[in-house]
């Protein structure tokens, strides 16, 4: 089967992601921003699909677009939007922002131009069919400890949220 990962799709999806990302920070209405972020996340999931990582793409859709963003919207919709639209948008930390953006951009450019020397050479195994199984063996074999630590961390966060929200347990 011919590979689907043609440059055309990469540029298309990256374009969608960039436009979505710009809309997130320029829209005044927070609901519009959240929806633009969802578009960005979905385009990102498609890029994972292009990189022969269907499992990561599926999880991205379920967790981010379907779960977290819905909760985001849920909260935003309960906030009175009329006032926030009338307010002038401000950014008092633009100096820090510019420094961080320049650093990150420089890193990206460095990785793009000198990447072939920095990173070890590795050929992408284009076996879409075993992707999920490979992730499972890695996650529950080699990286078992890190995986369990991460889940424990999430559990702590859940309990913390409940403790903070409820006065009497």
């Amino acid at each position, binding site marked *: *089967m*011919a590979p689907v990962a043609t440059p055309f799709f990469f540029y298309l999806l990256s374009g969608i992601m960039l436009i979505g990302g710009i809309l997130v920070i320029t829209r005044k*209405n927070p*609901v*519009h921003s959240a*929806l633009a972020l*969802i578009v960005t996340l979905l385009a990102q999931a498609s890029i994972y699909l292009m990189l022969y990582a*269907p*499992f990561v*793409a*599926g*999880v991205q*859709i*379920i967790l981010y*677009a*379907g*779960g977290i*963003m*819905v*909760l985001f*919207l*849920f909260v935003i*919709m*309960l906030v009175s939007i009329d006032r926030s639209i009338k307010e002038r948008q401000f950014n008092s930390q633009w100096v820090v922002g510019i420094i961080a953006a320049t650093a990150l951009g420089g890193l990206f450019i460095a990785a793009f131009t000198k990447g072939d020397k920095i990173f070890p050479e590795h050929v992408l195994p284009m076996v*879409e*069919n*075993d*992707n*999920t*199984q490979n992730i499972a063996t890695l996650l529950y074999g080699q990286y078992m400890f890190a995986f369990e630590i991460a889940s424990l961390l999430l559990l702590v966060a859940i309990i913390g949220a409940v403790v903070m929200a409820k006065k009497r347990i």
Partner: protein
Amino acid sequence: MNSIVQYIQSYLASDKTPGAAGNMFWALVYIMLVFVGLSVAVIAMNWLERKILAHMQVRLGPMRVGPHGLLQPIADAIKLLLKEDIIPAEADGLIFWMAPFIVVLAAFTVFVVVPFGPTHAITDMNIGILFMLGVSSLSVLGIVMAGWASNSHYPLIGALRSSAQMVSYEVAMGLAVVSAILMTSLNATGTGTLSMIGIVQAQQAQGEWFIFKFFPLGLIAFFIFAVAMVAETNRAPFDLAEAESELTAGFHTEYSGFRWSLFFLAEYSAMIAVSSIAVTLWLGGWLRPFPNLLSGGIWELVFSFFPGVTFLFFAAICFYNTVRMPKHPLFRIQTIGLAAFGVVLALIGLVLFIPAVSMRVQDIFWFATKVAAFMYLYIWYRGTFPRYRFDQLMQMGWKVLLPMGLGVLILTASVALLQQKLWHP
């Protein structure tokens, strides 16, 4: 012309899905077929729901348009298309416009991976079930958008209820699905699968539908899913998002005409989609009853008669009611129409008796029959269960189904491990 016939024949003999074969043209044909089939199913469901609910309440239901109201869905569709399309002045135009399309897209896209048969799926994905759950979870986005963009109180409350409900029940649903996926790994290699076709093939290989696997663990997981899927599709008794007595029509109160009909279409195709997940995971998908126990030439032949006999049975009902129609001249056209409908059904039934045809579409028939049983259950629930209160709904989701799902998952994993260690060392 001859080459076209040969091309089609070569495809009909293929044992791959169009997606696996990389055949774009057949994939498009399949997409069209699935789309048309779904639309017909939604129309039929519309009529059946009104009819069955009416008979449950000792009414007649639609009787005016066509014989026994058979043309009522078409009349409804025309009415909806001709209705004025209203966008409230204070609504958020773009989001209001987008919401129904997102819901419909999410509801229809999941059918890309639904396996109607070993070769009758548009494509098979390595992440099939994950894809179905993920894309169907996007429909909540459309509902939330619709409710918020209407800029009105009832839709907003409906949307908030529905998103809270869908996010909560997704958790229990996911746990039930995981315990079924775990069962697919009980083979020689010890590797399971997420692919929809692979899940059914695993049931075939193990000679057991997963609903009966590790009795009663499979049954409990199926029960959790069966409850969660009703909540997930916002249907009675969990239809708080559109509780008529409290919220007029919930999240789609401000929608009218064509946009409203899109919500309607999406609701019913989402019902069919979640039912197909349940059928695939627990009820053996396209497998006919007892494929291993009652195997052999005679049984194959007997079971291949089922599709044709079913259609002949429907035709017989039509003819019976044709005879029972009032003899008044005003009913003449309706009587002829009903008889013609019966003839069409009988012809379909007769075509299904041709061995080549019945072998090819048998799996679709069994899949559709199982899904139809779920559709009937949906109507039955609506006719019999009173609506839950919202706190009861949340309690049910978080305090009953979620612990049950966790318990079943842990027990299934333990039993599976024990089986692999003890019986098959």
